[in-house]
């Protein structure tokens, strides 16, 4: 802040501006390709980091919203995930698409946050059937926001298992290893989540 700004501040004619923490880092400039983005991020360029964030933040926010219950929680997961991305970018081998790698990091960040907030409790495999009768749903009857709200209303452990199995495509064995539960527990929780979702969808859009 310059010396000339102090009288204006004293008279209340100007508002103080908060010092920017990122003032010492270079500002973003031109649009870069993915390889240039990766190289720039590895060199610590803020421009490259911001472009990478802007390129993938919307899609990763959608991923985080599915695992989180609220938007704020999803933003926390997104923030933690992108910090992890920039810290571990040197370990990215560039053998798989960058988006897939970032998505994995976001999923792991969501799992970490879920462990911190609500530890998983193993439940008995119980009374729920592992498979349900297939029921056909008309896609056009449902909107993205409605389905997202339905998923977010699930219990945290059901939401995790459903997302990992039905959306991400993990097997129950992999889910059991990721969540530190047994494969049967993963199956039973998925079955319960499926029943809950069917009921909610039935209430949301009654069949004509």
């Amino acid at each position, binding site marked *: 802040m310059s010396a000339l700004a102090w009288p204006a501040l004293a008279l209340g004619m100007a508002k103080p501006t908060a010092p920017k923490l990122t003032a010492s880092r270079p500002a973003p400039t031109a649009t870069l390709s993915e390889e240039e983005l990766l190289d720039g991020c590895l060199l610590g360029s803020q421009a490259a980091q911001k472009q990478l964030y802007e390129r993938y933040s919307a899609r990763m926010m959608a991923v985080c919203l599915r695992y989180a219950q609220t938007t704020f929680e999803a*933003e926390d997961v997104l923030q933690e995930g992108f910090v992890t991305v920039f810290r571990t970018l040197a370990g990215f081998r560039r053998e798989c698409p960058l988006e897939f790698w970032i998505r994995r990091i976001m999923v792991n960040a969501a799992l970490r946050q879920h462990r911190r907030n609500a530890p998983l409790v193993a439940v008995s495999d119980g009374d729920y059937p592992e498979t349900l009768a297939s029921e056909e749903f*008309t*896609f056009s009857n449902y909107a993205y926001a409605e389905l997202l709200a339905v998923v977010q209303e699930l219990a945290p452990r059901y939401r995790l298992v459903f997302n990992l199995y039905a959306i991400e495509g993990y097997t129950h064995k992999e889910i059991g290893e990721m969540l530190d539960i047994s494969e049967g527990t993963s199956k039973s929780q998925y079955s319960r989540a499926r029943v809950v979702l069917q009921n909610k969808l039935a209430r949301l859009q009654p069949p004509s």
Partner: protein
Amino acid sequence: MNSSTPPKGSLEELFRHHLLESEAAAVPPRPQVWEQVDNQLLLAQNEKYRRRLVAYRWAMAASLLLASLAGGGWWRSQQGTAPTGTLAEATTQQGAQPALAGASPARPATAASGLAPAPLSPAAAVASATRSSSIINPLAIDQTATLSASASLAGTRALATRTSAIHQRMGSAASHTLAGASLVGSSLGLTSAPLGAAGQAATSEGNYYAGTLASNPSTALADDNQPGDQRPATALPGTALAVAAAPEASPTSETASHASRHTSACESSLAP
């Protein structure tokens, strides 16, 4: 609603269709998220710099410490090697020591050599090694055994036993001569206690003792520290036993005692 071909599917397909395909059109996060991410990255970068600075400080402190230790040690060694220090001076005591017990009167000659402990500077610890050079009449002496080495530094006790026998045949006279060979330290592996560098450093001094031994053909087994402790020299041909018992020196004393016992047994030569 398109009633002609409505896409249908299971529950999983429904969610996969909507949630995955709508990701690209999802609402981007608030701009504050990026600021927080950038802030965390900046903090992480500052933390990395701070750790590096701490590591540099430790490395610098360790380097200074090592340099100061090395400089101090070098200065101390320079002070220690100053000419103020005196090496041990061996005093040959001829006749002062009691006669060697057990020496056969028939033996033609015995040599007595006594070494008195002398003050030593710490850096000039000397282990004496006695060398018996064979200035021996080959016709008269059959065997000469000498021995001797003992190294003691700063209160350590070194026990050196060395046996040396060198037969020297003298041409047409066909006389056997066992000349006490000069063996220094552990050069021949005959010492029971390693002498190390100190013993080897005393080679020249041992030569002096050997010369004394050769010039004084009287046998003596002298313990410099305990004059009363005299053990008879066993007249084993070609064998000499030297036991040096160094006094327990105080850590601050600069004395490194060294004693050597010389036993020389000279026997008559073997005529062919």
